[in-house]
């Protein structure tokens, strides 16, 4: 009994902290005029939804753009980290610990500190106001998550697959792309999800480097947050929540299917 109560209270606390906000967001999105002291909205209206429908083109465009540059950021970090992670997982060299520490710092120091220094140069070389510019900056402080995941992935994989493939006569490129890469997919997804979320939810750096030319979902949401019509901001926040969840679920399922097809489920 005591234990049930304790588990129950755990779930209640989790729900209050993390689920209740979503419920309230749903209410706010349907009740633009919800005011103190009503605990429950006095009147519901679809005005926020209506606004969303009228503007769906612009909002969806921003959403697609955010999705696009976030996925590109994931790709960029993967490109940056794949070989170095293999080196880190497999070789010992002097100064390795120090270098690893240094390579992880971009995730820690405030990104403003180097991004604003780069801004003026980006304008010079026409990287400002472009998607590549935004992707470079986002990749620059999100890659450590990909890097750590890949190093861990290479370490768990060990050497056996590679040695086996080499003994069977596979070329180094074959080994990398046909043997190791598929085995790394879970690590890539683990690291990639974090990179994706970091890129997808960033506001300021996209605003700074994108200069309004790279539409973003956060950029669309931002001006609405302080507006007195809160229902629209609430709707957009809900979309924000829903889409990445959808992406992750779809990815999980398709991954599972792919593994099952290849008979790798036991691994």
């Amino acid at each position, binding site marked *: 009994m005591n234990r049930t109560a304790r588990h129950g209270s755990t779930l209640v606390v989790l729900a209050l902290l993390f689920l209740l906000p979503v419920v309230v967001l749903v209410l706010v999105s349907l009740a*633009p*005029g919800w*005011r*103190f002291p009503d605990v429950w909205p006095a009147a519901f*209206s679809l*005005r926020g939804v209506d*606004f969303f429908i*009228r*503007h769906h083109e*612009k909002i969806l465009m921003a959403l697609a753009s955010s999705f696009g540059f976030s996925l590109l950021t994931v790709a960029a970090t993967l490109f940056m980290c794949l070989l170095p992670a293999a080196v880190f997982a497999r070789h010992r060299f002097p100064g390795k610990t120090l270098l690893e520490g240094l390579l992880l710092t971009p995730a820690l120091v405030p990104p403003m500190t180097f991004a604003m220094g780069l*801004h*003026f*140069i980006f*304008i*010079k*070389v*026409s990287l400002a*106001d472009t998607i590549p510019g935004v992707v470079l900056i986002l990749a620059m402080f999100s890659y450590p998550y990909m890097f750590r995941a890949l190093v861990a992935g290479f370490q768990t994989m060990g050497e056996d697959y590679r040695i086996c493939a080499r003994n069977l006569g596979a070329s180094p490129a074959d080994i990398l792309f046909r043997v190791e890469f598929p085995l790394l997919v879970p690590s890539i997804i683990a690291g990639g999800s974090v990179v994706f979320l970091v890129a997808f939810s960033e506001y300021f750096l996209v605003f700074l480097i994108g*200069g*309004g*030319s790279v539409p973003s979902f956060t*950029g669309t949401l*931002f*001006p*609405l947050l*302080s*507006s*007195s*019509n*809160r229902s*629209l901001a609430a709707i957009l926040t809900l979309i924000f929540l829903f889409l990445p969840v959808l992406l992750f679920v779809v990815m999980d399922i398709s991954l599972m299917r792919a593994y099952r097809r290849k008979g790798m489920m036991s691994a």
Partner: protein
Amino acid sequence: MKRIALTLMILWAALILPVAPAGADDTALQHLPFEQIVEKARGTEVRWYMYGGWAHVNDWVDTHVAAEMKKRYDIRLVRVPMDAGVFVNKLLNEKAAGKQKGNIDLLWINGENFKNAKEAGLLFGPFADTLPNVKKYVDPASVTHDFGYPVEGYEAPYGRAQFVFEYDSAQVTPPADLAGLKAWIMANPGRFTYPQPPDFTGSAFIRQVFYAVTGGHDQYMAGWDADLFAKKAPLLWKWLNEVEPYLWQKGRTYPKDSATLDTLFSRGEVAFGMSYHPSHAQSKIIEGSYPATARTFVLKDGAIFNTHFTAIPFNAPNKAGGMVLANLLISADIQLSKYRPDQWGDFPALDISRLPEADQKRFQDVDLGPATLGSEILGPVAVPEIPSAYLEALEQGWKEHVLDK
């Protein structure tokens, strides 16, 4: 190692050096007949950078204006939300970097931002006087100066605004003048505040107080006078600091912009809102954010009015498109739709008496709603904007003497 560092430094130095200016055939645009400009712009995209904090204004631009641009000129309008100070800074950066092809085609701008932009050579022009709708409908005398700074055709009129206070008639009786307002604030601690300058509306509020406590606006119209300012400004700081302890949050903090103040007012946290748009309260009632009993009032001491404009950056990639949009914005149809409180409620910048009679009638027929004051009340209290040098000194001084004191 040293050599690498040196190479990198040289590389950066090379990046820093100004890029050679691209060939500027822009001057041709200023002399082209407008029909040809329209032809040049047809089928293009126009990027309009403007303040993005007012949902109903964004809504109006994204739906109404964008649809008209598409229908009439086959031009795709992209609205980009950005504060005026920020895009002026962005242009300054681009100018310094020698970037000849930017990404902004039209700006919504006025006041000190216009002055800064024009003085730094960030604007294309003069172009406004070649726009057909400006020639036809705008009274030239009404747009010669923007905050005391000569316009000279570098911006096209877009709308007109006058400062009003907002209140809920079911809750409070509004004061008649500034002294009454001060007495009200002190009698009702925590129920009044104003947006933190340099927010547009908050800055306008302190200018109004400045006029009222220093003996009117006339003395400042001649232009910047440092001695005069040094003598008069302390009166303003004194007034503001006297009421500060009685403000919302005891004046420890201020709403960061007018949208935040709107929210505080709409949720009943403060008793008065303020806006640069006389029918803003009506728009908010229609939108459902303000109670139906919301009304507006002005103080006897004066209510500042001004004109806001659109301008084209020096490095706009589609100047022709920017001109077409600026011209459309000052057309009778757009001005009329902008005037309606269910759209935006911004006052027309054109001279209605120059319109064909049918159009004049359409303007007269617009229902501004019970929350909007008539011109018989707004007219007599209207006072002009202060020259922008004062405005900047007031904003800087506010930070020093009121916020950080």
